[in-house]
């Protein structure tokens, strides 16, 4: 029932076919690798931080780095990214400090950023509801004659939601420059993709919106990059949205609060771990002679150092003042808020104002 990435026919691949992607030189290939290592390190450290009680419940994205880095590298900096919670650290690829994302998982208001600073929308917690936002942004940019496109990440489970359908349909109708990027990792918590749809493949849904679709190996960063770049070029050229289905397998729990042993095929998980996306790319780069032990160690250490200083910075952040309960709930707040805050301060005591 669950999709099997390796060996599954019809998936676009680059690494396993030992192809090269046009336009990607050594520099670009290493930048992609740096991004994957940054994400991998972020994810692995976050699980540790969670176990240490330093961050709250955390949605793991281990083995999704190829999808995330491959897709984002196909964009220009002016293009917008709409993440789901699975892509919570995607802002790192746009220069967002790790501390900001760690704040978010620590439940601190400093974890919210200005989307316009990075062209990265806020992390979307409810499933698929960010899809119409991305369609609206892409359509709105097009109406203004601007160059920007949008890319929205969502999972296989999201394709069952009405919001996915409405967003995809709007994007098709208005020919919005949008990449609908589906991270099909086979599982929505414990529900396999085969229980989400009777369609043979999620990419089949593209036909219903009159838009092109492509199905790639989600563990192959270069295949993801290549397919997304084509989608972005189409969008920028006025060709409207594209559905990209990146097929992978969730080799980690849904989140730190989840124990998947009750429902996943553990053998299949082991198999996926042996062939996880970072290792696959490393072996490719080594075959090409681009990556050696020293460079790998340097890149991994840089990422680790970024995380060490990120968690230190996050933990040094003072507690949020209770005024942040009220701040920014409205651009133009009602008078009652000031009175309520004053009363709360009085009851809580002290003069922290």
């Amino acid at each position: 029932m669950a999709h099997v990435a390796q060996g599954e026919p019809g998936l676009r691949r680059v690494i396993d076919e030992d192809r090269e992607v046009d336009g990607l030189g050594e520099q670009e290939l290493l930048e992609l690798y740096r991004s994957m290592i940054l994400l991998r390190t972020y994810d692995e450290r976050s699980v540790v931080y969670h176990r240490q009680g330093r961050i709250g419940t955390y949605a793991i994205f281990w083995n999704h780095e190829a999808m995330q880095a491959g897709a984002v590298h196909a964009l220009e900096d002016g293009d917008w990214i709409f993440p789901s919670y699975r892509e919570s650290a995607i802002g790192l690829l746009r220069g967002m400090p790790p501390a900001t994302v760690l704040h978010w998982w620590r439940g601190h208001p400093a974890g919210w950023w200005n989307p316009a600073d990075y062209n990265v929308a806020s992390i979307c917690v409810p499933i698929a509801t960010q899809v119409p936002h991305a369609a609206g942004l892409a359509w709105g940019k097009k109406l203004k004659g601007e160059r920007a496109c949008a890319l929205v990440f969502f999972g296989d489970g999201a394709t069952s939601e009405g919001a996915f359908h409405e967003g995809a349909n709007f994007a098709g109708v208005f020919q919005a420059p949008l990449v609908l990027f589906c991270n099909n990792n086979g599982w929505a918590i414990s529900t396999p993709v085969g229980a989400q749809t009777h369609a043979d493949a999620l990419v089949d849904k593209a036909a219903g919106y009159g838009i092109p679709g492509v199905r790639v190996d989600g563990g192959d960063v270069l295949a993801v990059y290549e397919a997304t770049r084509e989608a972005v070029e189409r969008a920028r050229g006025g060709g409207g949205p594209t559905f990209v289905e990146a097929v992978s397998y969730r080799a980690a729990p849904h989140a730190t609060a989840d124990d998947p042993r009750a429902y996943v095929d553990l053998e299949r998980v082991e198999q996926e771990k042996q062939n996880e996306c970072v290792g696959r790319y490393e072996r490719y780069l080594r075959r090409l002679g681009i990556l050696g032990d020293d460079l790998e160690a340097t890149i991994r250490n840089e990422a680790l150092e970024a995380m060490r200083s990120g968690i230190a910075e996050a933990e040094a952040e003072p507690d949020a003042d209770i005024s942040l309960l009220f701040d920014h709930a409205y651009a133009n707040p009602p008078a009652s808020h000031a009175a309520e805050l004053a009363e709360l301060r009085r009851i809580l005591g002290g003069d922290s104002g």
Partner: protein
Amino acid sequence: MIEALNDGFHVELARDDSVLVMGEDVGRAGGVFRATAGLQERFGADRCVDTPLAEAGILGTAVGLCMAGWRPVTEMQYDAFSYPCLDQLITHVGRYHWRTRGAMEFPIVVRMPYGGGVRAPELHDDSPETYYVHTPGVKVAIPSTPADAKGLLAAAIRDPDPVVLLEPKLIYRNERSEVPEGDYVVPLGKARVAREGDDVTLVAYGAMVPLCERAADALAGEASVEVLDIRTLKPLDEDSLLASASKTGRVVIVQEAPRVAGFGAELAAVLAEKAILDLRGPVLRVTGYDVPYPYWKIEDAYMPSVERIVDAARKLLAF
């Protein structure tokens, strides 16, 4: 009122070229009630957009349009058809400004015809204001006169926060009065004394305001009745509510929505908290019932009426 809204749209779209109207049948048809008539011809299909039939998609894409620099004015074709958009309203529209720590504004207007008494099929008659008022980050206004419809629409469009504008369809066409020409704004958060009186205050909004005025007429010679038109449900003009309660000491709240936890309950709670010593009797409510809005052959029995309002006022006067 429809002409006033349409006039308001023409003024606001001409005034600010980032204002974009979107919804089902708003363009070519000019809206099923004609509120957006002529906009597409005058401002083009990109400023007055016929969308697919998808309320959550309309409001969801409006969020993205804001991020791209637009001020979207969305139309939900009818009150009860707006419910799919509550998902976006609650999970995103009311929260996104806060999420960006104030960095981005989401000046979205969600407007819709609402309310009963129009002899319509099922689910064309609801009064959903409480769902919207209960959503943090969202403001709610309801006009009861053509001038207020134009002025509150302008205020909603220019406001930096999301505003839901509920338009009482019962009086779309049958309440006629003067409307100021050109640029005209009625600020949010200000109630209006529709009629001055000394003995009892009838508090209402939307189509219940003219009904309360008729009830006031019916009580002429018996009591001097004040009618307070709330106009903006959130932020609420508590000062005007408390001032009127203080003056008359008797308050009847009239709403056509079902009684339980309706907006009238919020008004009554404010009076209980802040006007208790001014009141000479309990705060009474005349409302719809906790039942699905009825088929129209019996809807008159559901809707608040002059008789029910007069009855409540008399109970209070005799208390």
